[in-house]
């Protein structure tokens, strides 16, 4: 009966939307660095810790307001207790473990073994409780027992608790943990040196009345102070034999210090790229409205120079040397395969909300088709533009879901056509497109703010700004009207295509906003 109740309860919890949503919310708040509200929670907890420490320091020599003491000893401690229990709750799922055990037993045709299930639950929860972080969390609650003055020292665990919220410390520990074996060897070596030197110095000095070393504790203290190269000088050997031991410990101390420094430095050097990439991926998550460029080859190098002036760009390429080149050129690049869906997941790129367009810029049709297919499989809407290197692959790119194709060979043909047909007109249009002349062609979107002061094309006054109105692109009907008549109605979302001096173009756009009816 009880067993059946336990199973029902476990299934109820694992299928309850409210329960799962609540648990997920607390998990995100406490453990998920990518959750947008976690930083506010962390900031709140850090503030509580700092308040707590300030009160403790103040309390050492001065009287602290009773309300503050109450706040410190009860309110903060209870908040920490709730946090501790919540972390224990979200660290693993009891209901899932029970269900798993039930399914396992049912499959083997056995009765549900509730003991095995609870053993597993206890093991998992105890593993969490005995983790360093959980122990610090628990000890940070202890100052709650204010009356036990000795236990107040546990307030220091509240300071340690800060590390839970400091990402840089977590990075530091993860880097150092990569050299676990080397640090362990170093620890063993220094422990042996400390032990041997403590014993030796005790044996040599303890019976000498002039020596300050009388006990093994003092010998141990002297060894640690010496090996760490701190050398306070409060305890010094008085005998020649003792000085010999000191020389040995000092030499060993230099070796230990040098070894430790080199270990930390090498650990960071090896992990530097990874740390940098983690930081870049974090920044990437916050970015929106960027062009995702797949491949950093010749055309991309030129393209990014032009696009980077007004746009945010992210480059991904599976070739490490090309990514390094992109970094050297000052761009945000990642060494990931653009043809793999996993890359987009690892980089946390939301193609739908963050990306303006995906540019398949590899100078190889096979790779561009593959990338386009991958992107399209992840998002049906995002715009994809691709290079085409061989005309026989045009259909394949279209089939893969590419919206716009640029075929350099065709472009050369069209340029040749225009150049031999109308060389002067070609040069004029080319000059308009070029950024090196003062005269430009620009598109200006009609906004609702502009429409407060404008109604028809004749209201524009573009000639006052020495601008040629080439035409009007109407959003409704997606139609381009060349040289539109003065009585053409302007609507929100329409585009004016204007030619003129770039300074006047900017002034004119401002004028459209400021113009009085």
């Amino acid at each position, binding site marked *: 009966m009880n067993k059946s109740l336990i199973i029902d309860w476990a299934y109820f919890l694992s299928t309850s939307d409210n329960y799962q949503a609540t648990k997920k919310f607390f998990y995100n708040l406490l453990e998920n660095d990518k959750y947008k509200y976690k930083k506010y929670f962390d900031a709140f907890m850090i503030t509580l810790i700092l308040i707590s420490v300030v009160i403790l320091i103040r309390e050492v020599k001065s009287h602290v307001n009773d309300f503050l003491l109450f706040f410190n000893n009860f309110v903060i401690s209870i908040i920490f207790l709730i946090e501790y229990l919540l972390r224990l709750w979200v660290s693993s799922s009891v209901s899932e473990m029970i269900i798993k055990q039930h399914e396992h037993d049912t499959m083997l045709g056995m009765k549900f073994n509730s003991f095995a299930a609870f053993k597993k639950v206890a093991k998992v929860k105890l593993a969490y409780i005995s983790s360093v972080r959980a122990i610090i969390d628990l000890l940070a609650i202890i100052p709650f027992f204010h009356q036990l003055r000795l236990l107040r020292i546990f307030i220091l665990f509240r300071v340690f608790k800060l590390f839970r919220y400091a990402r840089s410390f977590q990075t530091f520990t993860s880097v150092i943990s990569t050299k676990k074996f080397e640090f362990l060897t170093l620890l063993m070596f220094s422990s042996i040196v400390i032990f041997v030197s403590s014993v030796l110095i005790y044996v040599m000095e303890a019976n000498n009345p002039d020596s300050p070393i009388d006990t093994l504790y003092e010998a141990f203290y002297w060894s640690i102070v010496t090996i760490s190269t701190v050398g306070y000088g409060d305890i010094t050997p008085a005998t020649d034999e003792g000085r010999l031991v000191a020389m040995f410990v000092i030499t060993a101390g230099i070796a230990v210090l040098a070894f430790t420094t080199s270990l930390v430095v090498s650990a960071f050097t090896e992990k530097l790229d990874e740390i940098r990439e983690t930081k870049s991926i974090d920044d990437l998550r916050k970015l929106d409205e960027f062009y995702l460029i797949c491949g950093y080859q010749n055309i991309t190098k030129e393209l990014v120079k032009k696009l980077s002036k007004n746009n945010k760009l992210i480059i991904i390429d599976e070739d490490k040397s090309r990514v390094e080149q992109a970094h050297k050129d000052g761009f945000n690049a990642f060494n990931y395969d653009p043809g793999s869906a996993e890359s987009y997941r690892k980089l946390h790129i939301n193609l739908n909300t963050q990306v303006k367009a995906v540019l398949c810029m590899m100078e190889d049709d096979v790779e561009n088709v593959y990338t386009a297919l991958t992107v399209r499989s992840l998002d049906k809407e995002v715009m994809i533009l691709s290079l085409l290197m061989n005309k026989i692959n045009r259909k394949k790119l279209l089939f893969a879901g590419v919206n716009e194709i640029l075929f350099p060979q065709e472009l050369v043909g069209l340029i*040749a056509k225009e150049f031999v047909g109308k060389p002067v007109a070609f040069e004029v249009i080319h000059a*308009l497109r070029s950024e090196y002349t003062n005269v430009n062609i620009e598109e200006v979107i009609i906004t609702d703010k502009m429409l407060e002061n404008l109604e028809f094309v004749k209201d524009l006054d573009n000639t006052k700004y020495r601008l040629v109105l080439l035409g009007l692109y109407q959003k409704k009907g997606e139609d381009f009207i060349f040289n539109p008549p003065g009585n053409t109605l302007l609507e929100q979302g329409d585009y004016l295509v204007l*030619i003129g001096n770039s300074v006047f173009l900017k002034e004119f756009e401002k004028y459209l906003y400021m113009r009085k009816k």
Partner: protein
Amino acid sequence: MKISALIFGYNDYTSQIAKNVSYKYEDIAVFKQKNDKSRDEFKDFQVETFDLSDDWSDLELHHDISNSVAFCVLEDDAQNIFLTISLRAAFEKLTIIALSKNKESAEKLTMAGANKVIPLVQTTALMIAEMLDKPIVTNVLHNILYEKSSLKVAQVKIEKPECFLKENGDIKYPSEIDWSEEYSVLVLSIIDKDGNNAFIYSSQSKHHPIEKGDLFVVVGYENDIENFEKLIGGDRCQ
């Protein structure tokens, strides 16, 4: 002698150029190197074999060099530069259009005597950047330039500046005329008889009365441009 398009190179660029310039040149000669394998797409063209060490003086026997145009589109930049310099050394008046893969070879091709260099990488990058930054402008210009809409861009030579007389008998300045209202065309720029190019509203063209021999770059519908040409008595310069 024939006015020809001489295309040096045997690749995808060759086929695209041949396809696009065939409306202007009846005679298209494709030149391939000895090692190039035959391709079906060139079976309708006259294909000749050449070597970079050839003496090009024979070309003059079959083609009107002064009015012909040469396209140097060899895959190898060094060979393309060598070919350009060879052609320029042989024919001072030949119009040479060359394709370059990068900026460095573009400069060398200009030094080698090419009249026009198409820097492939830069042009492609510019095109993509424009497609993304100014999609409407790019689409409109693309349609006008490459005649995919009824809008055209044309060069019109002024033969009768007296069409633009003021009441006092003086000739008008270009910026004084409402081109779109009076002629249904838009004048983008004016190239005077000395070859100076100026935007219609620039201070340069504000102080330049319309003269015989001026070239106007106009945009408009085919019929409107034709009417404009008839009115000013000039022929469209093609």
